């Protein structure tokens, strides 16, 4: 049995490379600040910040160009835990986690915790129950894992269709968000930016595959973390003399609570399973922050957390990221780092929401409509916020905020330099591009490796497989760009993708790991039942024929999938001995990766496998 020494493969100079990259980013920002002091225009700064973000990350992507199967589809299996975790964080959080979630927090208060807790729980669930086993199997895609686990092309095909739908929706949502941030920075038309960013993400994915998106993801995470933390820390220092925005923003909710209580706000109580997240347009601040269950019901909150957690744990992109680490121990550590960094970033973006709400409550509410602060007037012109009255005193419900632009407006409200305003936007752009790129590459490899080449009895020759993979990623980028043009609400579309993964993939994925008796027929029936029920409920909900939140569809589809998979498994024959051996093998971290062994034997014997 071939045992692999992890330390041999990891580049020992990675830390140096990324330190240089971080220094370059800081130097670029400082250079732009100097330029601003020398009267460089705001639009030019925004364009240069956009260019720096895309160029710096693009250089890393271009330098990651490779031509070997292991590098292209599995990142060479040599991403060390910290960098894999960093890259995974940004692929999971994306623009939705970085901007939309705090936007929901700003508008709907603590009801946003269904998203926060769902996101972090998903990572914990993936770290403990999913990722280590996926890594040991070592398939290049999630459907590939199903194909190996059940030795069935049919199960692989069906899971590929479900996984592709999930990836397509999430990638489109993230690409749309990236284009929105690009419009804020450059002022260029939205359609043009969607196309340009899709070409950038797709082009770099075509060149580097999983290795490219892994290294780019780490770089994008550095930019996003820097860009989010700097304005938050500055505001924290301004209001409390402490550079800990995560700890200082909470006090604002108490002090601002008096102002909120003086407002006449509508009393709202959500129905038991209602979960209405605020839309992307200008909508009023008509809830108290510390109140709960006015937009998300008592039943919807726990189910929403479970659906989002299970959907994130079953994301097809996760299987690729798990496969890029040197071993099972490294993938557990990588997810551990991802949980830590994601938790830190979620607290930081919540602090952005808290500070922004504090500025609104203390400087806008109670002010005459024709004497609003200059920063608010500036945000009105950019379309991020608006006041419904210009004649009387402004109350809280008079203030309209745009969900996906609100927290990026904090540097404007705090009177920071234009460079720092654009830096925050660049961070959001980097985060959205990280997620979009990761899901485009995942979708592309599913198209090429599972939907196209998956019909074959044996895998393609390595160079042909890479060529087909590149074509698949290119096709995926075009499909994502086409869909992104029609996305109105990125958060809703991303949640739809997560819901499909939760209802269609997660139950069978979990059972495949924990229950070795799960048969091929049971897996197929479970996947089909879960996906059909989830998608049908989502479609009925979207068309208004039933009143159900998007995420609640998987709360019905998931259990249906579990029950159907179990029932069909009981009624069909047990898995064969080879499958049972694969299951036992994947539960043990040591030893050769299952898929690497299959490939090695297949190419040595040139014998077909039932994949």
């Amino acid at each position, binding site marked *: 049995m071939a045992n692999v020494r992890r330390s041999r493969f990891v580049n020992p100079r990675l830390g140096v490379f990324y330190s240089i990259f971080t220094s370059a980013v800081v130097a670029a920002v400082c250079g732009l600040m100097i330029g601003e002091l020398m009267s460089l225009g705001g639009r030019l700064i925004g364009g240069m910040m956009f260019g720096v973000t895309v160029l710096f990350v693009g250089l890393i992507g271009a330098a990651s160009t490779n031509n070997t199967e292991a590098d292209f589809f599995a990142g060479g299996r040599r991403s060390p835990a910290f960098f894999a975790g960093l890259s995974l964080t940004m692929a999971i959080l994306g623009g939705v986690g970085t901007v939309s979630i705090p936007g929901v927090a700003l508008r709907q208060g603590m009801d946003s915790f269904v998203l926060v807790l769902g996101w972090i*729980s998903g990572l914990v669930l993936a770290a403990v129950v999913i990722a280590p086993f996926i890594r040991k199997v070592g398939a290049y895609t999630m459907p590939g894992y199903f194909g190996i686990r059940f030795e069935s092309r049919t199960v692989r095909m069906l899971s590929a269709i479900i996984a592709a739908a999930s990836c397509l929706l999430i990638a489109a949502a993230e690409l749309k968000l990236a284009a929105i941030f690009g419009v804020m920075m450059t002022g260029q038309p939205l359609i043009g930016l969607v196309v340009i960013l899709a070409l950038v993400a797709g082009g770099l994915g075509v060149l580097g595959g999983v290795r490219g998106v892994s290294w780019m993801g780490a770089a994008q995470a550095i930019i996003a973390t820097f860009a989010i933390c700097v304005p938050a820390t500055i505001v924290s220092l301004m209001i409390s003399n402490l550079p800990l925005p995560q700890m200082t923003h909470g006090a604002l909710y108490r002090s601002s609570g008096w102002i909120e209580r003086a407002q006449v706000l509508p009393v709202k109580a959500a129905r038991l399973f209602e979960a209405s997240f605020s839309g992307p347009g200008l909508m009023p601040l008509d809830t108290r922050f510390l109140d709960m269950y006015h937009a998300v019901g008592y039943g919807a*909150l726990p189910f929403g957390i479970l659906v989002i957690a299970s959907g994130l744990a079953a994301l097809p992109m996760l299987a690729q990221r798990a496969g890029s680490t040197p071993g099972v121990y490294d993938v557990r550590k990588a997810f551990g780092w991802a949980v830590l960094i994601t938790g830190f970033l979620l607290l930081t973006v919540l602090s952005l929401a808290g500070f922004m709400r504090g500025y609104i409550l203390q400087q806008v509410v109670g002010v005459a409509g024709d004497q609003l602060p200059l920063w608010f007037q500036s945000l009105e012109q950019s379309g991020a916020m608006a006041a419904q009255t210009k004649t009387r005193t402004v109350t809280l419900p008079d203030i309209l905020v745009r969900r996906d632009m609100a927290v990026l407006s904090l540097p404007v409200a705090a009177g920071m330099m234009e460079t720092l305003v654009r830096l925050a936007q660049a961070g959001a752009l980097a985060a959205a591009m990280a997620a979009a790129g990761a899901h485009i590459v995942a979708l592309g490899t599913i198209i090429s490796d599972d939907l196209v080449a998956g019909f074959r009895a044996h895998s393609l020759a390595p160079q042909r497989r890479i060529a087909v993979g590149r074509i698949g990623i290119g096709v995926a980028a075009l499909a994502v760009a086409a869909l992104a043009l029609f996305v109105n609400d990125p958060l809703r579309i991303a949640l739809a993708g997560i819901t499909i993964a939760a209802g269609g993939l997660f139950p069978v994925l979990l059972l495949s790991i924990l229950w070795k008796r799960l048969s091929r027929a049971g897996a197929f029936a479970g996947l089909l039942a879960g996906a059909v029920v989830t998608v049908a409920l989502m479609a009925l909900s979207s068309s208004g024929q039933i009143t159900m939140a998007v995420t609640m569809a998987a709360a019905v589809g998931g259990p249906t999938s579990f029950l159907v998979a179990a029932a069909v498994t009981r009624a069909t024959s047990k898995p064969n001995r080879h499958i049972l051996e694969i299951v036992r093998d994947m539960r043990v971290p040591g030893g050769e990766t299952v898929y690497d062994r299959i490939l090695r034997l297949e190419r040595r014997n040139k014998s077909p496998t039932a994949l």
Partner: protein
Amino acid sequence: MIDWQERKIHWRDTKWQMAAILIPFFLAVLVLPLYAEVLNGKSVFGIPLGYFLLGHALLTVAAVVTAGFVNRQDAIDDWHGAKEDN
């Protein structure tokens, strides 16, 4: 490399470890929000208590729980001879 007989025991210990990690964590995640609004009447470090528990506490618990899992599972693998070579 792990013995054949050890595999069952290793998997049993792994399953118990998973349950010990996930069940308390998810119980906290699902139950705490029911009381958060009421707890907001009190504060800790100046932060409303309910908000502090849902945000700071649970996110910290998630990181600690995952780190604990990584170490404990590695110890289980080592004990049963299932560890990867270094």
